[in-house]
């Protein structure tokens, strides 16, 4: 029996068909629109400051920065007179000749433990602010990889109680405001901190770890933020390694080790490098952590940008910001070229099975298990220590255990005035913005992936530009948003274009978050066999339909990983939220933490613990729900 189709219904089907055909284009246009207004416009407004002086274009401020030894160290001479190449080369040769490297033994301060040390003796080279910034970022990246990769290994290869929960919680450090982390680190590594209390039990200490080597502590703090990120992207890649290829290699006689090096590792490499790149870029633009733990002697470029902004010297700030962005964007470009060259073919995924971590009591003593236990202890100190210290701090005051910091939150919630920051409102806002960010950033990220993965070298360029949110400093993005969207852009006829409030906040969060979706989706998408998509298309599927029904299910784990990041970015985002939330009640949990600071930190710590608890709970939920779609 056939049902006659009404004209309405036919229109609707036609419309649906049209929409489906053009869905990808429409999504791409919307993405481009959001990026133009929320990213390129604000950034352009700031960058124009660097090159326009009283209406005319000038490169004077670049010349000033690039010839200032304070910023670029010994390169200043070269940059001031770039054409005197022979002299520069001669200078470099003399310098190289004077460098000596010697192996020595150093003693760990306080304990007297000797360690081998490679002493590099250079004739006083100055690296300048940029050089130092890159140096600490490089060290931070190494530390984050060293701490993150073992975690990825354990999480991907072993089964144990709480594995999925721990995997969900790896994202937690990401959302914590810098000041909380600094206080947590002091409470852990400080002179009266947890570690010294433990050492005191065995009659050691107290050691001023932070003062001994502030740089080392800053680097550990950076690893606290970024090692989980490295672990997370790597686990996602590891779980989508095709186990059949490993089995093939093994059946052809490869040892376990050989199979890992030749089959598994190449599939992990893009993820590891992506994690390393993100860590480098983030720590290159670091600011609150270095200052809080290290002080001015560890100042970075971002510190100077912030200072210039405060002094309203916007053109110098913008100049520094452009140089900073050039560094991080070139790294991103280099990485993306590499990533597209790495594209292999994979035919669906069959995840490798996980071994039980401790099959029986005796296995604990095997060297591999012992190493894992040792790593676990280290992770406990670095990750759990600061978090536990924060929680402890929120329950104590000068005289011992107290609940009054939480009472403060409750009281504020019940009796607070409309212009005050209410804790529950902050929680609800954070969760709503997080979900809305998910809804906007995931399609944006996927669209950017699809547009760029099949477009060759041009795609790499577009991809690099699409990574701009990662490469632009938060301070700069903040001024751009303020001057562009919040103050409003004057239009003809006395009108002003202003965008603030919740919609703007979600858009800004989505802009900050979508690169993570793109970075977790692009590699698996690029390694899909194009033949799969082509057959779908040949059978009549639209490009969008092929994407939805064929490609996306195959890269689901990448999307889930990216979605979790998007949510985390939104929950933890501070600077643009606080700028766009002016005067309204669109504040989030991190904003509430900062507002409660006042002159006693108890309430801020309590709010920080609420932030931790709510975020931890939502991540466990996100990951459990997300996990269902992974395979």
């Amino acid at each position, binding site marked *: 029996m056939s049902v006659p189709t009404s004209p309405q219904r036919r229109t609707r089907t036609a419309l649906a068909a049209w929409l489906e055909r053009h869905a990808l284009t429409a999504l791409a246009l919307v993405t481009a*629109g959001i990026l133009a207004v929320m990213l390129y416009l604000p950034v352009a407004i700031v960058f124009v400051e660097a090159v326009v002086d009283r209406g005319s274009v000038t490169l004077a401020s670049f010349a000033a920065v690039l010839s200032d030894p*304070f910023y670029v160290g010994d390169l200043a001479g070269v940059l001031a007179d770039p054409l005197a190449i022979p002299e520069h080369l001669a200078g470099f040769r003399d310098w190289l000749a004077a460098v000596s490297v010697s192996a020595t033994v150093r003693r760990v301060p306080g304990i007297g433990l000797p360690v081998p040390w490679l002493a590099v003796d250079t004739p006083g080279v100055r690296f300048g602010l940029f050089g*130092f910034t890159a140096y600490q970022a490089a060290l931070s990246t190494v530390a984050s990889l060293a701490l993150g990769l073992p975690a990825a290994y354990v999480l991907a290869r072993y089964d144990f109680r709480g594995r999925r929960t721990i995997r969900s919680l790896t994202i937690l450090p990401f959302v914590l405001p810098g*000041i909380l982390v*600094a*206080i947590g*680190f*002091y*409470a852990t590594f*400080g*002179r009266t901190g947890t570690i010294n209390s433990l050492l005191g039990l065995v009659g050691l200490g107290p050691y*001023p770890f932070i*003062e001994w080597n502030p740089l080392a502590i800053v680097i550990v703090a950076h690893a606290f933020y970024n090692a989980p990120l490295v672990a997370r992207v790597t686990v996602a890649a590891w779980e989508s390694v095709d186990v059949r290829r490993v089995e093939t290699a093994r059946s052809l006689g490869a040892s376990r080790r050989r199979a890992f090096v030749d089959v598994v590792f190449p599939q992990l490499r893009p993820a590891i490098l992506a994690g390393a790149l993100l860590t480098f870029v983030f720590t290159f633009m670091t600011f609150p952590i270095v*200052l*809080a*733990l290290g002080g*001015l*002697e*560890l*100042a970075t470029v971002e*510190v100077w940008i*912030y*200072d210039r902004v*405060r*002094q*309203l010297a916007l053109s110098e700030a913008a100049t520094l910001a452009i140089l900073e962005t050039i560094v991080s964007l070139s790294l991103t470009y280099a990485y993306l070229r590499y990533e597209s060259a790495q594209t292999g073919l994979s035919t669906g995924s069959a995840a490798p099975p996980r071994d039980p971590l401790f099959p029986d009591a005796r296995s604990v003593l095997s060297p591999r298990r012992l190493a894992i236990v040792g790593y676990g202890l280290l992770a406990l100190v670095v990750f759990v220590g600061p978090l536990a210290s924060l929680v402890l701090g929120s329950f104590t*005051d*000068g*005289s011992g255990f107290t609940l009054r910091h939480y009472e403060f939150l409750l009281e504020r919630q019940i009796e607070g*005035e409309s212009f*005050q920051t209410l804790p529950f409102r902050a929680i609800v806002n954070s969760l709503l913005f997080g979900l809305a960010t998910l809804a906007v950033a995931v399609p944006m990220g996927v669209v950017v992936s699809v547009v760029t993965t099949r477009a060759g070298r041009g795609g790499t360029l577009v991809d690099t530009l699409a990574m701009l949110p990662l490469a632009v400093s938060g301070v700069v993005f903040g001024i751009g948003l*303020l*001057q562009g969207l919040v*103050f*409003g852009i*004057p*239009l003809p006829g*006395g*009108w*002003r*274009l*202003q*965008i*603030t*409030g*919740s*919609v*703007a906040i979600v858009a800004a969060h989505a802009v900050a978050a979508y690169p993570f979706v793109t970075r977790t989706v692009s590699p698996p998408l690029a390694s899909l066999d194009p033949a799969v998509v082509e057959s779908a298309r040949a059978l009549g599927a639209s490009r969008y339909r092929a994407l939805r029904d064929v490609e996306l299910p195959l890269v689901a784990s990448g999307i889930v990983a990216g979605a979790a990041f998007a949510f985390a970015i939104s929950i933890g985002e501070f600077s643009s939220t606080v700028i766009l939330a*002016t*005067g309204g009640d669109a504040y989030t949990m991190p904003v509430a933490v*900062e*507002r*409660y*600071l*006042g*002159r*006693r*930190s*108890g*309430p801020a710590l309590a709010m920080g613990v609420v932030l931790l608890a709510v975020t931890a709970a939502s991540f466990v939920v996100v990951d459990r729900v997300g996990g269902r779609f992974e395979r």
Partner: protein
Amino acid sequence: MRRRTFVGAVMGGALAGGAGCLTRDGDESPGDGYELTGNPESGTLTVATYDSMLDGNDPAGPWLTTAFEDAYPDASIEWTAPENGLNRFIQLEEQDASLDADVFLGVNVDDLARIDDTLAEGGLFLELDVDHLDRADRIRDGLDMGDPHDRVLPFDTGYISLVYDETVVDEPETFDDLTEPAYEDALIAQNAQTSDPGQAFLLWTIDGYGADGYLDYWDDLDANGVRILDDWSDSYYGSYMEEERPMIVSYSTDQVFAAAEDQDMSRHQIAFPNDQGYANPEGIGVFDRASNAALAHTFVDFLLSSDAQAEIAQRNVQFPAVAPEHVDLADDFDRYAHEPPEAVTVGYDRLRGTLDGWIEEWARERTGL
């Protein structure tokens, strides 16, 4: 034409979300003359200030709202605490954009210098009309904010001092003491680029050693192991409270908090090197383009009333701006809030055009580069 369509299309999406995005610039001409307009006892006053006036522990904002609205039933107060503080209004004024606020609570002397370095001299705020202020003469001596254009009046003041642990170090008598071996690796200061007390402490040393000598003094402090951290909260709650060091640049009202929290007082001793404290008076100013300048003046006068002065002192934990006979403070406050024998401050005239350079030179030498 095409640009309009594009803007319209972009806005359509944003408007759908409920955000009002297109606004029309008001017609009010910015500050022609200084005559007070508006009704002094009714209307809505938008007060811009900093976070902790509204959201810290026991903040002053809510009390001020209730008390002012009780005194003037036809008036109401709205608050706003923009992230970048007064800079926001300087930038808005530069662009001729709407300020959306009538007064700013918490103007420092260096803010005035920065306003005048950036905008035209005497910009942003009205010259206050003293005829409309009954209580302006209550302000105590030595709290003059030094503005040649009389744009602000102080409503409270804090003194930067040293806070130390008497079980570890003795009270330093002079600035020079801080460079002695007895105070090696003892002091925590804050970054003058990012922190108010940090900047005040730097200015204090400039007051003591002069613009030619302060960098040398800081070199000596460095050699003696001063540690400079980002801002007051993380240096205090992190480093100082974790007993990394026995001395910190902080406020002379520290004991008020310490007593309220039953802390061990030996760790909260106040030192005034050279018998001085650096005064950081906080002022209130009325924006040039305030919608109701008369009501704003009423609010300024209200802040100087005895009740308001006592509450602000207590809740902001700062000293009142008025002379002692005009304010009754709680016994505990009198007991624990210490006033320096001599208050010093670097005035507006010296800050004009030089503050940024002082800070930058100081900061450049403090980096490890």
